[in-house]
């Protein structure tokens, strides 16, 4: 650490706006204002002066960022929908239950009441719960700016730790999640219940006449952003009975690059990923 700026928890001076239309938000962002959703990551970073934006624009009044809309094949979740709303949404629980489970495992209740899906994906913490689940579900991130709208698949949107495809002046408007008609599981291992994951895995599978189909295994808490284990998926698709895929699994996990910190080194985290997936696969053979 070069200096101890982290020790004093008073943010630097900043301007604060809370407009009521999306247009005003985008105009302020064009001028360099930073958007604030639930503030669960942004504010602590500002207090530690890891971030010192001159200007914040609070998205709290923007109604069009709040809705959950269910279409035939997809669910569109507004950027300002909180983790708690996702956890408790009837629509999401019936169409994509694994997403509700993913949200239910984020942080603690206070974080889930304030934190939002748009804020989480924009922040792109490599260990965030949503990333592997959204990757497995082939979600798209809908972006808006003064110059128009565009949409990016999650794997193109998240480029690495705290790194996204957002351009200057661009805001996450919604996350669009295709409805997956199969089963979903999520396993998170963390030091304490409310901590970021040491390892996190989302597993989706369909079973048609006892035959596995459309298996998707996505791993989070990686330096690279979330990854699908495609070789493992391939070896499972079409299978009817229990098979031993441990060699493929071990090899594929070895190629992953987990984040590393005080709470777990790379080798340990690979072991946890391997253990979680091995245990999750027991569900497949039931």
């Amino acid at each position: 650490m070069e200096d101890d700026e982290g020790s004093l928890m008073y943010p630097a001076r900043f301007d604060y706006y809370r407009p009521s239309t999306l247009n005003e938000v985008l105009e302020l962002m064009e001028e360099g204002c930073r958007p604030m959703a639930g503030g669960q990551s942004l504010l602590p970073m500002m207090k530690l002066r890891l971030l010192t934006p001159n200007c914040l624009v609070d998205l709290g009044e923007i109604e069009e960022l709040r809705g959950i809309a269910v279409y035939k094949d997809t669910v569109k979740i507004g950027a300002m929908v909180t983790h708690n709303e996702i956890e408790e949404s009837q629509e999401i629980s019936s169409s994509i239950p694994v997403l509700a489970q993913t949200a239910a495992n984020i942080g603690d209740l206070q974080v889930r009441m304030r934190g939002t899906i748009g804020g989480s994906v924009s922040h792109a913490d490599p260990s965030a719960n949503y990333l592997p689940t959204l990757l497995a579900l082939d979600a798209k991130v809908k972006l808006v700016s003064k110059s128009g709208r565009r949409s990016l698949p999650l794997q193109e949107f998240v480029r690495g730790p705290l790194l996204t495809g957002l351009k200057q002046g661009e805001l996450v408007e919604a996350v669009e999640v295709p409805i997956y008609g199969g089963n979903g599981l999520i396993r998170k291992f963390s030091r304490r219940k409310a901590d970021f994951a040491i390892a996190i895995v989302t597993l989706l599978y369909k079973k048609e006449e006892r035959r596995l189909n459309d298996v998707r295994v996505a791993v989070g808490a990686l330096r690279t952003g979330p990854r699908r284990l495609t070789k493992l998926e391939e070896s499972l698709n079409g299978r009817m009975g229990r098979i031993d895929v441990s060699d493929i699994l071990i090899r594929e996990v070895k190629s992953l690059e987990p984040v590393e910190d005080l709470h777990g080194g790379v080798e340990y985290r690979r072991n946890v990923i391997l253990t979680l997936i091995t245990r999750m696969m027991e569900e497949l053979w039931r």
Partner: protein
Amino acid sequence: MSFRAEYETSSDRYKRDLYHSTYVETQLKYIGKKFRRVEDRDIVRGRMGYADDIDFPGQHYAAILHSPYAHALIKSIDYTEALNLAGVKYVLTGEEVARLTKPITARAAPTSPKTQYVMAYRKVRYMGEPVVAVVAENKYVARDALDLINVEYERRPVVRDLDDALRPGAPLIYEELGTNVVIHDKFEFGDVEEAFQRADKTVKRRIGIHRYSSTPLETYVVNANYDKLRDLLEVVATDQQPGRTVQSVANLLGLPMSKIRLIVPPMGGGFGYKLAVWQYIAIISLLSMLTGRPVKWIQTRSESLYGPHRPKGYMDVELALSSSGKVTGMRLTDWEMDGNWPYVAGLYSLIKFANMSGPYEIPSYSFEYYSIATNYPPVVQDRGVGKPFMTFALERIMDVAAKSVGMDPAEFRLRNMVPPEKMPYVTPSGEIYESGNFPATLKKALEVAEYWKWKEAKKGRRIGVGISCGIEPGTSNLGYYYLTKPGTPDFTGAGEMSTVELTPDGYLRVNMNGPEIGTGHVTTLKQVSCEIFDLDPERVIVSKVFDSTEGHLGYSGTYSNAFNDVYIGAALAALRQLREKVLRLASHLLGTEPSDLEMRNGNVCEKGSSRCVELSEVARLAYNRLTFLPAGESPGLRIIASYSNTTAKPFNRSNFNVQLTHSNSAHVAVVEVDPQLGSVKILRYVIVHDAGRVINPGIVEGLAIGSTASGIGGALYEEFVFDEDMNNLSLTFGDYLKPTAMEIPDIEVVQMETPAPNTPFGTKAVGEGGAITSLAAVANAVEDALTDYGVEVTSLPLTPERIWKMTRGA
């Protein structure tokens, strides 16, 4: 034994004259009841009135720039730009501090370093050491100013660990000492050599403890206002030992103690962490004197995590055993890494030492200790001070020893415990265990926890059962730090002063004049007061504020588990005297002998009759109708009384008692370990706790659970991690992991009561027991669960990654 007779005498005395009636046989209305805490209503509504809630008119704020390096010379400090920032009033550096204050001196070291001031002077010795302080009109400007200060450092090689500190040519933390060994001393009691020569078996392990710490929700707050008009330094601060702080701040700043007024509002937790705030009181007071403004400093969470902490350390523990499973001797070498700070160096070691035999009868032992200076942050007397590590080491080696003689760990412990008939028991070095039934405590814990059933259930699952038996001493007989250092202690014994008053309108006002740290003192004192005066709780006002001008003894404060001995003792002394005076005045009003009177629900009444006089009427006589007072009675109803526990002995290297009451407990933890993930799940946690007579069982249960949660944190979660350069990597609660309610199991507490003969109500220490005893319970259980892997737990915390590595033989 001579003091046994003394005890019996004092015990009889206590029975006889608690309030000049047979207290013990009286039906108790308030004591021993689960009285709901009266503090909580204010706490949850934000109306407690903490230090940060108090402002002086024209309040200014300070911010402190801390050292980014663990060991460096300060070559230059340029603060011109900071001083030019609008709103900034003053910038203070170590150069000025060294001119205006005295250096910090060591309490226990025979030779004190001379270059450590309250702010870094020309050299920094830990990451986070205060280097520059700024005063500004508000806290944001003060913080902004820090970014404009340019400090040029020349980095020095760091001292990380034991080997590093002791090797020839090691970088020195204090050049003037010529060594990093601040203290080295050795004590021996009984013939240890012979015990080891005759032993059928010996076991020896090096056991380590890591850096962790209590982290009160409320951090340090200091608000200093030097009042020129009255030539008085007024300070509002979060301080657990204000009696001593007044002395040390007066000494550091060269002020008379009588010109310092220290006020301590209720605190959001203390845990020992708030025994080191005096350093910052000196800095902030200096800033107020230099600027002529009231200056407030509120420590941020990250600043609080810089330190102070508990020290990291190692102990070589060795037991001599007989083939029948008796411990006949013990050798201990303690290596305590006291950080860079001379101030409390050695204290942890000496406290460990006085309690090294735990609940066991060990006829001979020796203790050698080294206090080592390193570039770790300062050390403070955190919850249990050394006893958690001592108990961890002792209860680990007891398991190792049990295994070596092929005995069950429970049976092995029972065989070696001090039997109840030997109470009061004096350890070889002179610590007096005044009462207790250690085997009964353990047997009860085994029964409640279904120990034998779990031992069976183990089969096929990675379940482990761990036992730990601990002594929880209370009431520090201060001055023990002079055991190693020549000279006369500046304080010995343990005591407090208290003021009680029957107000002119008949309310009872009680001032224990000690810091309220959240542990239910107000409620407890209310119970005691109500009991003595038989008064409605609504008519008892208990102060929750310490004010140094209200009268206190030299080391007054809330620490060392002493409250229900010394504060209750002082309050009780004052209440008794006040009660006697009230009875005398009532006797004058009623024309009845005082001995025929009793307190009855806010009145003084003739025994067995309905002839009464209200307390307010007695007060009117005392305060208003002065000409009607009986001859020889002074007006008013205000009593100041003091108390000291008379079992404190003066210090003598061959016979001394460091603490004066000794609660004890047995913990049984049942855990299940997942070796693939390295995770530990606590399936069952049972505490049988004997804290003597209990005034409020609800509060005591809460303290037993809370302190155990802190030990579970130390055993499984909490650790300050330092890198190669001794940078502290755990400066947020995202990296320094406290267990939350989600991690702490449902802890079952069973209370036993073996009254202490040497305290006013027979009470003993409460508040540290779990922190002391739980480390080994968890560690022993984890080791037991991993028997197949042949692992041995000799250090903590047992993080998932470490357990995983242990099971892989790494």
